[in-house]
């Protein structure tokens, strides 16, 4: 079977780096198995390791000072309140108990907190400022004409519009 597009194959051959001589690379190098982890797996492992180390250190402190119950410094707690989500606070608290004073920044806890400003109301279809909400679909709309379009939307389309701004109902 002749290749249908010989020039493409030839081009790929010239671009291919697999067979090129790489003198700078160690001949004995073998990548570790399962080194590829997606972000979620990496973060889950970090959390697990933290939990384990906290358990260990707690056991340590309990053994060291029985009765002398040092409370967590208040200033450190105040700094925490700025970081919002409960999960973040929990993980930050864990950090705190390592007695470092300030929670060390990690990939998991540097996420910005939710906004304290009221969210703007924008038309879900046209993006214009929207003064109305359709009680049936919960879509926001700018004027009567857009409302007419919303009424005529097919099944599930309204949900897709809501999903764009994360306001759709997700059944789990």
């Amino acid at each position, binding site marked *: 079977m*002749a*290749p249908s597009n010989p020039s*493409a194959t030839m*081009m790929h051959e010239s671009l291919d780096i697999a067979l090129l001589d790489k003198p700078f690379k160690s001949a004995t190098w073998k*990548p570790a198995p399962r080194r590829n982890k997606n972000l979620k797996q990496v973060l889950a492992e970090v959390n697990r390791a933290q939990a384990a180390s906290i358990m260990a250190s707690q056991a340590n402190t309990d053994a060291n000072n029985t009765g002398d119950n040092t409370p967590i410094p208040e200033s450190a707690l105040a700094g925490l309140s700025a970081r919002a989500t409960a999960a973040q606070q929990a993980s930050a608290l864990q950090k705190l108990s390592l007695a470092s004073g300030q929670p060390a920044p990690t990939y998991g806890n*540097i996420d910005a907190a939710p*906004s304290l400003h009221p*969210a703007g109301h924008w038309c879900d*279809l046209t993006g214009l400022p929207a003064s109305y909400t359709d009680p049936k679909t919960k879509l926001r709309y700018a004027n009567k004409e857009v409302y007419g379009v919303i009424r005529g939307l097919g099944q599930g389309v309204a949900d897709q519009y809501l999903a764009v701004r994360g306001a759709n109902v997700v059944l789990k």
Partner: protein
Amino acid sequence: MAPGAAETSAPSSAAKPPPTLYHVSEPKFLGETPQSDDYRRFAGRKEVAIVIDNGSWNTRVGWSTESSPRISFPPVLSKYRDRKVNRVFTLVGNDAYADSNSRTAAKNAFDNDVVSNFDVMESIFDYSFLKLGISNDNGVGHPIVLTETLCNPNYTRKTMSELLFEAYSVPSIVYGIDSLFSYHYNGGTNGLVVSASHSTTHLIPVVNSRGVMSMATRLNWGGSQAVDFLTKLLALKYSGFPSKVYQPQLESLFLEHCYISRDYKAEMSGYLEMGTLDERDRVIQFPYTEIVKEQKTEEELAKIAERRKESGRRLQEQAAKMRLEKLKKKEEEVVYYHSLLERGKGETKKNFARMLENDGFRDEAQLEKRIKELEKSIRRSRNKDLGIEEEEEEEVPTFPLLEIADENLTEEEIKQKRAQRLAKSNYEARLRLRAEKEKERERQRLEAEKEEERRNNDLEGWIAEKRAMHEGIVAKLKERELKKTQLSDRKSLASLNRMKAIAHLASDEPTRKRRRGNDEDTFGADDDDWAIYRDIAAVNEEEEEEDEEMQTELKSLEAQLLRYDPDFSEDNLAGAKSDWNKSLIHAFLRGTRPFDPENQAEANQMHLNVERIRVPEAIFEPSMAGVDQAGIVEIAKEMLISRFTDEKQSERIYRDIFLTGGYAMFKGFEDRMRDTLMSMLPFEAPLGVRTAKDPLLDAWRGAALWSKTNVGQAAWKGAAITRAEYMEKGSDYMKEHNLGNVMG
């Protein structure tokens, strides 16, 4: 979509020049990246570092002594098997986009802003060192300066160190944060680094040239999320778009057409105003194939007409022949029947009757009738052949038997009389009908005349009357439509009433209203009672018929009005009530020109208008794209006002808000940051906002500058992990420095 937009084209827009079209096309492969051939200049120079800005949008690689990176490519690997030559190709960077096969197999090294696929990463290093032309045996003999994301997870850094030290035997590695390198390159010492890049946006305050990591914050919004946002919006805006839209096309749309609005709410409010929309509306033409209708030349047309005529003639000839044959047959038949009649006269009555019966006749009269009929038809067809117009004189049938009393008739004749009576009443009914038709025609003619007269004498009154009728019908149709939509909604009053009526009809119980002594069911006494069944029918055929009638009436009214009313234009037609010129949705979907769905070019066009500011705006208001985080300005404000306790320090930071990363290249980003921050910060705060000289390349340049100036110095030693240290302290080992991450 505005109905009727296609047929009603306002004269004002007809004169409009066609819009400027922006074309999208398949991304072109730029060709092979050449391999550097000047490695001799760097070979053996351990003080020259290889600087790698390892970003999720582009990887940039070069020598620390140079001012720009040598190569820049997307961090992707395409490993795919070509079945025809049975070989696996390993293509990296731009080469992965060489053709559609390799493009679909391309994998990115990054998950969000963190390296997750080290197979891809390893290929990227292979590719980078090959392209730099490194030909050392036993390892890459240069220190590596590598950028990483803010708070890069330890696992990722560890695996990266393992890869670089073990596979490439590098002498040392310096890890640093890209945006801090960029700030370093732009000469900043105290300020807030805002790095809006491909996968994320980071805000890192810098005090005395050192990043304050404890306050560093990440917003999960960047160019890639914005492209996703645009993708979703366009998919919903043009559902059923005829051509396929590719990811690179969307990326280019985002980069080319989006900009950041200085005052989002104000600009958005007036964005779709027809008068000025042309300035903002971008028409994107997608590739399409024109369905070409074959144009026939005049010669061909003539030929076709000739052929048609020829075949027509042949048919005519055939028909004539058939007619002639039939005629002959009929003539023969007539001759035969005549002879039969002749012969019959000589025979006895009984014999004659038998003869008649043999030929299928009941009696002589029938035979005569038949002969008459045949003769008539022969005459007619002869005349037709000869081209003589025959005067159709209808002979008035006579019914002689009706006049005679039954007593004077034989039984046979009474039968005939009965038949004649029937024929007579038929005949009279026909006449009556004809007369009625005539009368109706006359009446219509008179009415038309009267109306014309009225129109001629009192045009205004006539128009007013017709208009009122027109409006009445339109209103009625609208009401019907409304009722129909209401019925489709289970909670509407109309449906509730309907359900109530059904329940009432179905129940056997007498209604409570009925009083004692009056419990007789009177349903049906009033004819209107039966209307209830019409009202509860889900699909009302009668109403649909009425609707149709009204539509035809409407059409004729509109035709008249169009003809005689100078003020009644096509815009006033019922169908064109949603005039596209005033339609917001039309402006949103199709811009300022009428839309013709039959036109292939127009059907394959997208109009980017509100998306141009709506998509990049999400960095200021992430909630509009479903990201539950504060916007970039709110984060900055919170950081500067609430979290910096030292006022002097936070003031020094106000002075230098530094924007870097690809997102910072959007037109208007800097102005918007300045305006919004100004409104949030304390009165007369000495605010300064600036953008990196090159928001894309300055991270690499900063890293190169830093390593060039510091190599061999204390700062370098404080930041670089050497091979010996790696061997001694393990792959988890890292060093904290001014421009890098801290231990997490």
